[in-house]
C-alpha cells in the first residue's frame, strides 16, 4: 500500500504550477500524479517520495489536502498487463474509485495506483493472485 495525497484546486491558470513550486522548493519529489477536474474545480492526486513532508508543505500553503491509502500493484509493461489486474478485481466485484499508471524506468514493468472502495479486500485479492504490491518504502524508492 502507499500514501496518496489529494489536493482540492480551483480550475484556474497557474494553480498546478503553484503546487509543484511549493513541493520543488521543499525538495519533495513527485513520483506519480493524476489530475481530474469537473468544470470549475479539480482534484490533484500525488504520490510523493516523502508524503508526510508533502502534506505538511501543502498545508502550510493553505491547500485543502486529504491523505488516502492506495494499493500500488506492479504489472508487466506489455499488452494485456493492465487488463489482467483489472479483471482480477472485477471478478471479485471490487470497485475502483480511480486509478492511474506509472511506467518504470527499467521499461519492463509498470505500477498501477488503485484507489478502491474495499481497500483491505482488494489488497488481499491481488496478493492471492500473485500480484506484487509495493510497500510505502518500495514506493518511495521507485
Amino acid at each position, binding site marked *: 500500500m502507499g500514501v496518496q495525497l*489529494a489536493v*482540492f484546486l480551483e480550475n484556474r491558470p497557474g494553480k498546478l504550477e503553484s503546487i509543484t513550486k511549493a513541493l520543488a522548493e521543499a525538495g519533495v519529489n513527485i513520483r506519480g500524479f493524476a489530475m481530474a*477536474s469537473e468544470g470549475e474545480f479539480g482534484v490533484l492526486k500525488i504520490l510523493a517520495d516523502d508524503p508526510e513532508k508533502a502534506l505538511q508543505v501543502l498545508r502550510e500553503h*493553505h*491547500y485543502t489536502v*486529504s491523505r488516502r491509502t492506495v494499493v500500488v500493484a506492479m504489472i508487466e509493461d506489455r499488452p494485456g498487463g493492465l487488463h489482467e489486474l483489472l479483471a482480477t478485481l472485477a471478478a471479485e466485484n471490487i470497485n475502483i*474509485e480511480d486509478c492511474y499508471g506509472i511506467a518504470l524506468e527499467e521499461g519492463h514493468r509498470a505500477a498501477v495506483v488503485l484507489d478502491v472502495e474495499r481497500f483491505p479486500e482488494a489488497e488481499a485479492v491481488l496478493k492471492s493472485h500473485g500480484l506484487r504490491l509495493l510497500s510505502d518504502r518500495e514506493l518511495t524508492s521507485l
Partner: protein
Amino acid sequence: MDKLEVKVEINAEVFRGTLSELERLAARVTAELRAELGITPVVRLVEPSSLPVSEGKAQRVIDRRNQG
C-alpha cells in the same frame, strides 16, 4: 432573471480526496438552499481563504443586480 451565486470554501473536514464526493457535496448544498429559499442557487466550490474573514467589515453578500 436574478441569479444567486453561493461560494463554498472546501476545507479538510469535508474533503475526502475524490471528485465524486465534491460533486455530491455541491448537489447537496444546492438542494438544501433550494428547499430553504425557494430558488436554485449556483454553488461554486472554492479554495480555503477565498472568502472574506469575519473580522472588520467583511462583505459576504454582493448584490450585482444593478450592474447590468
